[in-house]
């Protein structure tokens, strides 16, 4: 990377975006232009560094950081008239990581962020005079309801999707592919938390499933007990994105940044380990003797969900509905080929921490913070 590299990064306060931004500042000499919502952009670069990127507000970092106010859902990212020409002139690399990762949004709402937002980002990138590379953060679950081995170059399918997040990211990949820009796609697995501290930047569906389990409200999860539950840590995911984006960029590449098969859980193990960790950390909870959630065929799960709705039981229906958005994917067992990742990062599998080595830390963080309420 040259000293004049200027990188626009969207989603710079998200789970992966903030870590990649920190890597870019710490480990390269590029100028970094994080796209922040209005309130974030009003902060000084020093505040942005400490608050979002866990970096000290040194003169060197401050000099290379150019927070930009914007919103990917608005035309031209809602950039101020003075920002847009500046970006068009300076930026030569774009990393688009902004997205809604909620699984329960109506499709239109998911599309407005993930598809339309991506279109706006590609539009701005396309007008950057020096554009050399665009990175797009996607999800491994654009594979939707496909089962079996999913290869990195594959995208198009007609198997359907388990939730609107998957579908909107699938459609966003099409927008990226059709942009004509030099794009690489980083398809991430479900990111769980920091493997060293257990810290969770954003509590998403798997954390909420754990929370419902803690409340004794998870009756069943759909799927096969042996199905893999692909979970990775924030740190390894961000590290891989950073390295592939900065050191191994090749337009057209698609990467599965997912867990090696022997370093993640099966569904059965996931349920049992969650139960065991909660019991170990919360003896009062253990005394209640909640049973392990049953692992059910999808039709049993769906019938229970429909019954809770029919019975007008809002709590149980809400729980089942929330689980459904996340857990429905478990009924479509798949594993992800990582050949392209391993071609550039041959030690990726070795470096990826085993879920068993840090899952307990994540569970503890969830309990200690009340799933983010006491942070």
């Amino acid at each position, binding site marked *: 990377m040259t000293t004049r590299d200027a990188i626009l990064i969207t989603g710079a306060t998200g789970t992966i975006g903030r870590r990649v931004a920190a890597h870019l500042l710490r480990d390269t000499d590029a100028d970094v232009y994080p796209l922040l919502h209005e309130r974030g952009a009003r902060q000084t670069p020093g505040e942005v560094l400490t608050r979002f990127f866990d970096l000290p507000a040194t003169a060197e970092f401050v000099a290379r950081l150019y927070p930009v106010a914007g919103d990917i859902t608005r035309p031209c990212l809602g950039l101020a008239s003075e920002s847009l020409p500046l970006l068009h002139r300076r930026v030569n690399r774009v990393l688009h990581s902004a997205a809604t990762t909620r699984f329960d949004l109506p499709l239109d709402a998911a599309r407005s962020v993930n598809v339309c937002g991506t279109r706006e980002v590609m539009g701005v990138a396309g007008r950057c005079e020096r554009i050399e590379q665009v990175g797009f953060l996607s999800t491994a679950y654009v594979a939707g309801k496909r089962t079996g081995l999913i290869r990195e170059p594959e995208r198009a399918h007609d198997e359907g999707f388990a939730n609107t997040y998957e579908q909107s990211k699938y459609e966003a990949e099409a927008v990226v592919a059709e942009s004509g820009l030099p794009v690489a796609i980083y398809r991430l697995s479900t990111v769980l938390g920091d493997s060293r501290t257990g810290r969770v930047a954003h509590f998403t569906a798997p954390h909420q499933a754990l929370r419902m389990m803690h409340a004794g409200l998870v009756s*069943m999860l759909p799927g096969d007990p042996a199905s893999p539950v692909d979970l990775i840590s924030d740190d390894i995911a961000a590290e891989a994105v950073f390295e592939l984006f900065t050191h191994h960029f090749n337009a057209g590449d698609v990467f599965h940044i997912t867990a090696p098969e022997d370093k993640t859980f099966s569904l059965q193990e996931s349920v049992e380990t969650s139960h065991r960790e909660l019991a170990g950390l919360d003896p009062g909870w253990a005394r209640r003797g909640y049973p392990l959630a049953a692992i059910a*065929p999808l039709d049993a799960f769906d019938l229970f969900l429909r019954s809770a709705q029919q019975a007008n039981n809002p709590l149980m229906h809400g*729980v089942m509905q929330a689980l459904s958005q996340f857990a429905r994917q478990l009924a479509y067992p798949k594993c992800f080929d990582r050949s392209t990742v391993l071609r550039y990062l041959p030690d990726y599998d070795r470096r990826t921490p085993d879920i068993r080595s840090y899952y307990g830390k994540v569970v503890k963080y969830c309990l200690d913070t009340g799933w983010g309420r006491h942070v």
Partner: protein
Amino acid sequence: MRSRYGSAGISRIAYRLPACRRALPELEAQGRIASPAGVLDDFGFRSCHEIEHHDELFELLAGAGCDLLQDAELLSDDVGMLYLVFGLPVTRTSDDRGLLGRFRYPAARLHHELGLKRAGALAISEQGCSGLLSTLDMAARLLASSESPAALCLAGDALPAGSPREIMYNLMSDAAAALLVERDSPRNRILAFRQQTQTYYWDTPEREQELLAAYFPMAQRAIAACLTGAGLDVSEIDWFVPHNVSLRSWEILAKLLGIPEERVWTRNISRIGHTISCDHAINLADMEREGALTPGDRLLLFTFGFGASWSCMILEH
């Protein structure tokens, strides 16, 4: 197959239902069901039976006991123990006979009414719908060390007259049943019994939602434990004899267990509804009467009782 119960089993069954029968629309019009009638209909219910006066439950119990003893042509001396099972806790109010009025036991009254001579009398309660299976297990085990060849189990429950008839999406009936447990039973030999007790759920109203969530995984666990105890695979069960909770819950459980729904005998769910402690007795009697059973059939009886316990018994017909 060797069983810890030897050849003990259920040799005879009789039951009685109150004459008064009410359909869902009538109950809905009376404001006695919490869910819309259409939802309960979707869950497999049509009508229920209810007593019309307080002493009717006793009459039903005595009547069922009488029917059974006459049918069995037993000498009353052959019955070594009378067990009386209530799923609902028995509450006694003092009457004009003061404190002594609290010591008027239904088990003793039924024992007297049925003319049992040598039998002891014991009442069992606070196991909800699990009470009958627990009592059958206890009776069969005690027979092994008893000189008497048989024990009589009476079970019955009635909701207070005029009260709501729905409990947690189930339509409730009043009923009474009598079962004869014999040491050398010609049918319904008990192969195994397992009960999973989780008393955290003792406060049913407070923990209703958690209980709903626990129902299926605990059911699966209790059934698996009982099958293991009997040395059987689920595919070796000929009939699943349900407690008559919603048909929907059995559809879900059947999918969870990987069994065909046709092997769950559900006819009485719509006809009678859920009777708390008598469902298995009524279903077994009707299955036999309708010719559904053949000798050697393996029958799996499952129920859940507030308190909370998940119970499973396997019989060989």
